[in-house]
């Protein structure tokens, strides 16, 4: 055993019992002090690096400040906000983002759940299969974006090469308006299907076996078992995974930047990418801040939803 502190020497029990009322009170006090000492550094860092910047952005969003022009910022109140909310450009990006988020999340949920369901029915090689399926998720979006860009290349990309050998027509995946957004959805699905799979698998293996046994005694059909046992029990966890993915997809920037840079035209410009263009290419810092604050509001709503479901899941 390790040495006790010098003060308590040989008879720690006696020391504690010698002063009956004191330990409770002083301990609670020192506990409070400890809690503050342990929590505040982390909170201070978050205040400095997350909250303060957002407050600054909030302030800038009411001004016409430009990062390059410099000079004093003039208050324009809600001009930036009305400009963004009424801009047809922004509406177009919102639609693109919506298509992208819904398309990618639905695809990866269906695929991820299917894979998880198939894996959960296997007895052998589950560990190896799961590990292999998880690889895309751990890669950096930079690596994923670059690599798919090469594979989808119209000239010497392997996808078109395979289409060619099957006698199919070549597709300009990343340089045609309609296919570019589709490609973006496919690549995101490729990377994040494992995420849904992982969480669905966790849910599926947590379903108590006796439920299935009871159902099979009742000669319930496979579909009936799936619909009345599996799905209701896995759904809460799956919903959390879906919401998590939706938030992430809404925030996504790097994949767009690498894969298409928003092009061709503006067909793959999501809201994230548009904010970047307004802020760093247009240098309208005030407008970009207002744009960003609006995005933050959406993220906060989604996060609240996510946390509420998470809380519900934990209480069950």
């Amino acid at each position: 055993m390790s040495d006790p502190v010098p003060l308590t020497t040989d008879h720690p029990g006696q020391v504690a019992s010698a002063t009956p009322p004191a330990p409770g009170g002083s301990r609670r006090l020192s506990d409070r002090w400890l809690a503050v000492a342990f929590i505040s550094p982390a909170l201070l860092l978050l205040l400095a690096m997350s909250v303060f910047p957002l407050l600054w952005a909030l302030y800038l969003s009411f001004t016409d400040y430009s990062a390059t022009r410099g000079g004093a910022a003039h208050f324009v109140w809600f001009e930036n906000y009305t400009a963004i909310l009424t801009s047809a450009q922004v509406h177009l990006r919102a639609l693109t983002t919506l298509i992208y988020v819904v398309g990618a999340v639905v695809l990866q949920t269906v695929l991820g759940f299917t894979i998880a369901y198939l894996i959960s029915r296997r007895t052998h090689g589950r560990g190896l299969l799961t590990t292999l399926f998880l690889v895309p998720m751990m890669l950096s979006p930079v690596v994923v974006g670059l690599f798919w860009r090469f594979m989808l290349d119209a000239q010497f990309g392997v996808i078109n090469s395979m289409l060619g050998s099957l006698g199919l027509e070549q597709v300009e995946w990343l340089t045609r308006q309609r296919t570019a957004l589709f490609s973006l959805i496919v690549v995101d699905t490729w990377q994040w299907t494992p995420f849904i799979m992982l969480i669905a698998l966790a849910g599926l293996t947590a379903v108590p076996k006796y439920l299935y046994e009871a159902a099979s005694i009742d000669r319930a059909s496979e579909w009936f078992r799936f619909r009345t046992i599996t799905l209701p029990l896995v759904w809460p966890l799956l919903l959390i995974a879906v919401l998590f993915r939706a938030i992430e997809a809404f925030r996504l920037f790097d994949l767009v930047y690498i894969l298409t840079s928003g092009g061709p035209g503006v067909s793959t410009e999501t809201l994230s990418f548009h904010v970047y263009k307004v802020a760093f290419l247009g240098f309208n810092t005030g407008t970009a801040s207002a744009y960003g604050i609006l995005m933050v509001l959406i993220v906060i709503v989604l996060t609240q939803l996510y946390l509420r479901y998470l809380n519900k899941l934990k209480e069950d």
Partner: protein
Amino acid sequence: MAISVDEAVSTGPARDHTPPARRFGGRGRAVLEVALLAVLAVVMLFPVLWMIETSIKENRDVYAIPAKFFGFKVTLDHFKDVFVASGGGRSALSAAFLNSVVVAGVSTALATVLGVPAAWAYSRFSVKAKKDQLFFILSTRFMPPVVVVIPIFLMYRQVGLIDNKLGLILIYTAFNVPFTIWMMKGFVDEVPAEYEDAAMLDGYTRLQAFWRFTLPLLLPGIAATAVFALIFSWNEFVFAIFLTSSDSVRTAPPAIAGLIGGTTVDWGLVAAASIVFALPVLVFAYLVRKHLVAGVTLGAVRR
């Protein structure tokens, strides 16, 4: 208890619910399911295999039309190019890898030092509005990086942290602290508070009880949490590209992305650099596979 891949994959014998009469149909279905699983596995893994193939092909085979799947000459030149500059000496990419190691390592260490005590305090003490505080902490992690980077950029410009490793380390620490707190709180919750109570009856102070008895039990959890934080910082791209520019500061993700900036792209080099970059992540992820569910949901989901 956190559900782990290992647990998820090692649950006993097959559930055989099929009544005898339907056995034959069941077997046909099993074959179909295995086939479907195999096809999905091939689709999911093909890009990774293709990346590996590209990295060991000679340039003329990389651009071959139709694509060469087999029978190409194997070369390790691309991997050499990742580390060695064309004129000899260290390449810009290898410097970027070194920067990544420093930035990811230091920010992970800082996030651990700040996050673990906070997680312990949240787990053990009754803090005012604890739930709200924890939710606030997690929600800072969900902020869109492109939005946060605008004021951070202005802030850093004021204090001279643009194109500075310290600037990146600070922002990565701030992004990893919420994760560390949420992930570690789960681990601390699993260690009974009674251990500390017993130690305190023996005359230790609360702090000593934490340091001598709880902390050693938390080490595996801390290691797993740190590995995830390391992966997040290692893979991060948005802050890196906006807050750094010079070769001596730039981390690997923007450096690798920079390879496709020119008129001609050396895809063999891109593939080799991507593999060198991704390999440590895959190794680390394999080491913490037991905690993957908790890790990838930022410590939120664990049962």
